[in-house]
């Protein structure tokens, strides 16, 4: 078997909580708490979970936009968090990020051509003369017009801005793209266009995606593997069909039951979770989900369930996986 493109091992990211006059660290927000997975070239892994469960933080820590607390992130065999700033900079073109908010992720004072092309020039990958042609080419691949090159971000709609963001990531010719909820700021009709664009690009360029979303139906469309996160931990990860057909974790079941089905005659058996997501600064003991789990037993409060492979490629962290 070939080496995976990305290996994430026991990754943790804790944010310190400072309090008191002396700004002492009084606790930690466990945004990402022991995440492990691998990603092969050409794969698209979807990361789902409710707001605040650490999806975005995971994506950003993998790209080392945030420094990790513990664990390793190996990209093509090199540990990103061990690299010096200079080495990291050299690696940057290979892994890119598409942002959630197409408004704040573009600098208002930089025109589209510069925004997309400047990094290539700055890395010395393309000369200043060729850059305009390259930018125009990538603009049309991303469904924008070549004459947009001299315009400023405020002249575009949200969907067009997102295309600019994708073009900016794509022109670097990356192998790996973290898409951090790239469609959740857009309306539904535009969402479909952007998702189609992303999936076309994946086919064409054999890209590897880590697709972060809170919308299972979006992830279902684009990803061949799906990971479900809860409170900083991965609770279940399985190939798409497997996850939708045989969810083993009660949280995944609840999520799946919440997907609206466009069929008025079908009676939905929605599992409604009680209560709010607990604070990641003070997560529940044992299985983090036990406070809201309809099947919770005594052992769930005391022992942290192991994250194990239950079926082929189907990982889950639950004491009673598949028993209910």
């Amino acid at each position, binding site marked *: 078997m070939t080496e995976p493109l990305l290996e994430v091992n026991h990754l943790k990211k804790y944010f310190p909580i400072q309090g008191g006059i002396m700004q002492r660290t009084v606790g930690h927000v466990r945004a990402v708490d022991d995440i492990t997975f691998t990603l092969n070239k050409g794969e698209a892994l979807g990361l789902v979970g409710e707001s605040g469960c650490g999806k975005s933080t995971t994506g950003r820590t993998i790209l080392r936009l945030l420094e990790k607390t513990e664990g390793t992130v190996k990209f093509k065999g090199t540990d990103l968090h061990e690299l010096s700033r200079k080495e990291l900079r050299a690696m940057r073109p290979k892994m890119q990020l598409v942002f959630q908010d197409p408004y*704040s992720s573009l600098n208002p004072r930089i025109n589209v051509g510069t925004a997309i092309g400047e990094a290539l020039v*700055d890395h010395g990958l393309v000369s200043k003369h060729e850059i305009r042609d390259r930018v125009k080419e990538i603009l049309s691949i991303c469904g924008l017009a070549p004459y947009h090159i001299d315009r400023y971000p405020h002249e575009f709609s949200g969907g067009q801005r997102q295309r600019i963001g994708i073009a900016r990531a794509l022109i670097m010719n990356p192998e790996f793209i973290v898409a951090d909820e790239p469609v959740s700021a857009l309306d539904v009709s535009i969402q479909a266009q952007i998702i189609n664009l992303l999936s076309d690009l994946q086919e064409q360029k054999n890209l590897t995606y880590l697709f972060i979303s809170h919308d299972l139906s979006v992830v279902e469309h684009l990803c061949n593997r799906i990971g479900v996160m809860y409170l900083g931990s991965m609770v279940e990860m399985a190939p798409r069909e497997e996850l939708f057909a045989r969810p083993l974790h009660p949280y995944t079941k609840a999520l799946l039951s919440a997907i609206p089905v466009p069929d008025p005659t079908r009676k939905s058996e929605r599992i409604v979770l009680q209560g709010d997501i607990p604070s990641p600064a003070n997560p529940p003991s044992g299985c983090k989900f036990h406070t809201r789990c309809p099947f919770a037993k005594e052992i769930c409060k005391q022992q942290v369930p192991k994250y194990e492979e239950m079926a082929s490629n189907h990982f889950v962290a639950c004491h009673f996986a598949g028993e209910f």
Partner: protein
Amino acid sequence: MAQAVDTTSTNAEMPKTKPASPWTLAFRQLRRNKIAMSGLIVIIMMFLICFVGPFLSPYSLETMSGPSNKGPSASHWLGTDKLGRDILLRVMLAGRISLLVGLVAMMVSVAIGSTLGALAGYYRGWVDTIIMRFADIMLSIPALPLLIILGAVLSDIQVPPDQRIYLVMFLLGFMSWPGLARLVRGQILTLREQEFMQAAEVLGLRDKRKIFRHLIPNTIPIIIVVATLSVAGAILMESVLSYLGIGVVPPTPSWGNMISAANNLIDFKKRPWLWIPPGVCIFMTVIAINVIGDGLRDALDPKMKK
């Protein structure tokens, strides 16, 4: 495949509307501001008079061109001074110096202030501490006494008057950067946390590019406003120093050292043509610049408008 997802027109033709940069929009806004535009006209007139006017004058700076201490007349519109030099010509030449001092001092202050402010805000940590503590020290030293001392030193080591004006320019510029540095630093501290700066990080841009292409352009509205107002400040400060005899020194004329004629009670009471013209010039220039500065602030930063 792109067609399948394409909703935007992909005509290769250039549409007629020109791309409007944020600057163009701001300039349109400024044009609608009548007060700022009249300030701009006054400043342009002032520049024209000071830089073109002297060529039209029949007199020269070095020579006495008529009887001394005469009031305004047909041959000397603003009269002559005690050495018989034409006041109008001197006011125009003094204007050159004063405006130049204002502009250069502003440029020095902007160059130092925005660079240091940006570095402090971007790198934070010990870079920030060193730069900002230094700025605090500069701010806590009263400018006037320091400039008086430095002026006295300049007089003591007998710097030639024509070189002295350049020293005055840089001195004024060097005194006024900390305020701007603070503002720029504050802005950069918020800007660096914006998502587009994370995008710059993911793209692996160099720090130099991040600071000078991404961060500073976003602080330019503030820089422009502060810079404009600091031109007025520098002109005033130069006048003060020259009035006290330690800024621009005779024979080089400046509005400030021309006003110092009013020091003398006889000149003050009997010969108002000696000090009123430079006084009016300072007054008009400073008002005009301040008005432009306010207009720019409104145009560039719509959030600050009520």
